């Protein structure tokens, strides 16, 4: 017994302990806002709950659920059919579609809504062209259904979010050995039957992952829903805080939203329960596509091109022309240049912080595997599922009380008021970005590290390097690419982020995203197209990266 206690005693002396403590701190840092949110929500007066149930819940909850279902259906249908199209058939232009289908990923939901509001405006270019073609002269005689509707929102979100389904599903189709398909055909299933009987059931876990990501993105959206007049819970959190300054109320809705996220994650786990499909890498032979040429091939290409047209090409073309018009008209205003500096510097600082924290939890998980490090990892990467508004409200609660504490202490000791020290400096926004995107950084770094054989760690240690030295001399040079890629993804996501930025940015600090939001909310279409185009261009970087990775794995 004593020897057992002693054994625990000296085990704690290992040097990896410092890393473990750091990982624990990172996990706490992510967990704190969620805990704060919970406390704030249950502290709210009971009357608030009643108000919540009677007014917010019926309309907003139902709208949110309808939106989720709709987006789920659209992304599943578009994502799986396009994935099957470019995997099972060879037609002219297939190679282009393979990567071009990723492009809508570069378009944030609020930008696609912003663009289509103008494109499909009753006196806009598309409706004008249709009227001209049909011989009508006035919008009173003919107009398309208003894009500002639930249907419009579902379609637009669906057509920019389907790549979340397309990517894993296509990867699944490509990695599933062709032997399975061949076996099915020898068992009497037709070429068309394969999709329903073999490919789709096999891809179900991938579809589940993709749809759950798309739906989380839907829950995260605040811009598109608001521009298009859909009252989601996310929008109501924002308005509850901004217009009514009601923090307990906002926390309560945020908590409800979190509940839906938990439900989504559970649903995704359930959908791929007991499903561990693994392809035998050594005997892998990928599916040989069926060759289709001529008119039929053209039709397939058009079919595959439609989601790209709706989700990327049309809004991008619109933004390019509008931005050019604006630049020709007024040049680049100093305001936009300020916003560029704000956007880039906030995103860069947040990326640096997020990557550092990601390194801590991913490397600790490798250095000292065990319950503590794996729970730290899980807790620290939880933020990816939480919508930006929820993260922002949580961070707000924590940092506001920290600010109050600092203010009071400073007043007591030095007799001066510090005011909102952290909230005012933009640190809150960095906190929210890091919390929300830590999963991307840690996941990417973890994937990079896992490709490095553990015996390299041991070799380095037995050759006299400490854990930190091993990271610097072995892991860092070997996972540089993975860390850079993770950094790029985090950076781009920070640039695109809208909901948390809206809530937490310091006074008078505008980024591209908040500028766009402001103009779209006011209904004034001025310089926002330039900001949107900038976000779009930055957003294309990871798409290019993804398409390159896709090509390498083949």
């Amino acid at each position, binding site marked *: 017994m004593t*020897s057992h206690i002693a*054994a625990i005693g000296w*085990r704690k002396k*290992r040097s990896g302990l410092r890393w473990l403590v750091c990982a624990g701190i990172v996990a706490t840092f992510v967990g704190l806002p969620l805990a704060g949110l919970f406390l704030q929500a249950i502290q709210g007066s009971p009357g608030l709950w009643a108000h919540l149930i009677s007014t917010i819940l019926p309309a907003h909850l139902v709208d949110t659920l309808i939106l989720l279902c709709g987006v789920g259906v659209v992304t599943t249908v578009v994502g799986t059919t396009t994935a099957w199209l470019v995997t099972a058939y060879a037609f002219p232009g297939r190679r282009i579609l393979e990567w071009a289908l990723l492009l809508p990923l570069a378009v944030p939901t609020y930008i696609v809504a912003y663009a289509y509001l103008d494109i499909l405006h009753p006196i806009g270019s598309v409706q004008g062209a249709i009227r001209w073609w049909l011989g009508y002269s006035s919008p009173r005689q003919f107009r398309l259904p208003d894009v500002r509707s639930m249907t419009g929102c579902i379609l637009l979100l669906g057509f920019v979010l389907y790549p979340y389904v397309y990517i894993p599903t296509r990867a699944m189709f490509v990695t599933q050995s062709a032997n399975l398909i061949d076996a099915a055909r020898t068992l009497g299933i037709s070429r068309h039957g394969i999709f329903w009987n073999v490919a789709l059931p096999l891809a179900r876990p991938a579809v589940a992952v993709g749809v759950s990501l798309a739906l989380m993105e839907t829950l995260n959206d605040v811009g598109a829903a608001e521009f298009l007049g859909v009252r989601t819970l996310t929008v109501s959190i924002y308005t509850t805080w901004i217009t009514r300054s009601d923090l307990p109320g906002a926390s309560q809705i945020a908590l409800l939203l979190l509940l839906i996220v938990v439900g989504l994650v559970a649903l995704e786990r359930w959908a791929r329960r007991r499903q561990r499909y693994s392809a035998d890498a050594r005997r892998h032979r990928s599916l040989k596509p069926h060759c289709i040429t001529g008119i039929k091939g053209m039709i397939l290409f058009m079919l595959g091109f439609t989601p790209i047209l709706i989700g990327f090409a049309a809004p991008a073309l619109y933004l390019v022309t509008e931005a050019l018009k604006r630049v020709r008209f007024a040049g680049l205003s100093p305001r936009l240049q300020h916003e560029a500096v704000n956007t880039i510097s906030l995103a860069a600082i947040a990326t640096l912080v997020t990557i550092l924290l990601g390194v801590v939890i991913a490397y600790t998980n490798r250095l000292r595997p065990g319950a503590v490090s794996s729970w730290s990892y899980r807790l620290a990467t939880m933020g990816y599922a939480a919508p930006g508004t929820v993260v922002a409200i949580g961070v707000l609660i924590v940092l506001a009380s920290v600010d109050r504490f600092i203010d009071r202490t400073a007043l007591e000791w030095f007799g001066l008021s510090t005011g909102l020290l952290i909230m005012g400096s933009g640190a809150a926004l960095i906190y929210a970005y890091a919390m929300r995107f830590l999963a991307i950084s840690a996941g990417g770094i973890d994937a990079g590290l896992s490709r490095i054989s553990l*015996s*390299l760690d*041991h*070799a380095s*240690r*037995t050759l006299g390097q400490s854990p930190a030295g091993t990271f610097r001399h072995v892991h860092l040079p070997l996972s540089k690419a993975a860390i850079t890629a993770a950094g790029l993804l985090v950076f781009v996501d920070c640039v695109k982020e809208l909901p948390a930025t809206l809530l937490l940015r310091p006074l008078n600090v505008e980024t591209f995203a908040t500028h766009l939001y402001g103009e779209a909310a006011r209904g004034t279409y001025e310089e926002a197209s330039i900001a949107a185009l900038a976000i779009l261009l930055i957003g294309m970087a990871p798409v290019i990266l993804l398409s390159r990775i896709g090509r390498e794995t083949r």
Partner: protein
Amino acid sequence: MIVETPDRALEICGVSRRFGPTAAVSDVSLSIGKGEIICLVGHSGCGKSTLLRLIAGVEIPDTGRISLNGRDVSGPAAFIEPEARNIGFVFQDYALFPHLTVRQNIRFGLKRRSKAEAMERTSDVIDRIGISHLADRFPHTLSGGEQQRVALARALAPQPDILLMDEPFSNLDQALRDRVRDDTLSLLKMLGTTVIMVTHDPQEALSSGDRVVLMKEGKIVQAGSGYDLHDRPATAYAAEFFCDFNKVPGVYDAGIIKTAIGHFAYPMIVENGSSAVLYVRPQAISISLDQGDLPGRIEARNFHGEFEQFLVRIGDLERPLRIRTTKRLPKDAQRVLISIADDQVLAFS
């Protein structure tokens, strides 16, 4: 109580390590002298690699004590990190750093020395191992045998107190393996390095080490010279590990084991009348057309080149005997006579 003696390179005392419900290493004690070459051998999962990693310090024992050169490195009193143990480790996959050249790999463990000293030592080791033509190449451009030599050079460069090798030759093909092994071991002998080498190959274990340590389910089954383990195995497990025996059931009675293939004098510590199993090596049975004690019939023959294996049916014995001989028998031979010498058999209860 174990008295620390200066000629002990390694002392392992009651070391155990569990992974969840399985005991990978349980209560192992072993002591190794300076300059000794030890082979840890056993089937996969017997705990030999875990024991090696416990010695290296990349794994921590649950209980027990390990000391290197009289200094406690794992135990209730202290835990020395692997980087402070002064050990060399050659990994099964060699674990060469892919982003460093051969020279940089070898210099990796010399960072505590001055730059000039490290350079000199690196060149020295490179010359000694005979890899100067590889010095500026990257690991992925090297063949398996070359990588093995670089791994050895890297492990030896910091002049470790003890060299640990985990299946160092198993990634080489058969023809290359014997030569590389002979070269490596003669070099290590010449340098007087203390070596613990893990292998799953019985032949390699017998031929490589001064001492062979056979492990099973986390415990040491038997330790001794190769001759001891092969010729005088203490248990049936040890016997079967090193040789593919014929096993014939029998009954023990007053110093004699009575079996269907004859009576053999054999001293055993079991009750009279209890059953015993006779172990006969395939090459210890002589086979002939006209000379021998027992008649048999050839059921199958299989020519291996260096020897020929016969399956010979004897009377009402359940299984035919496997016999290996370098002798040639006529192609149509059917009836044969066999004989087994008393001193060639083993028996276990």
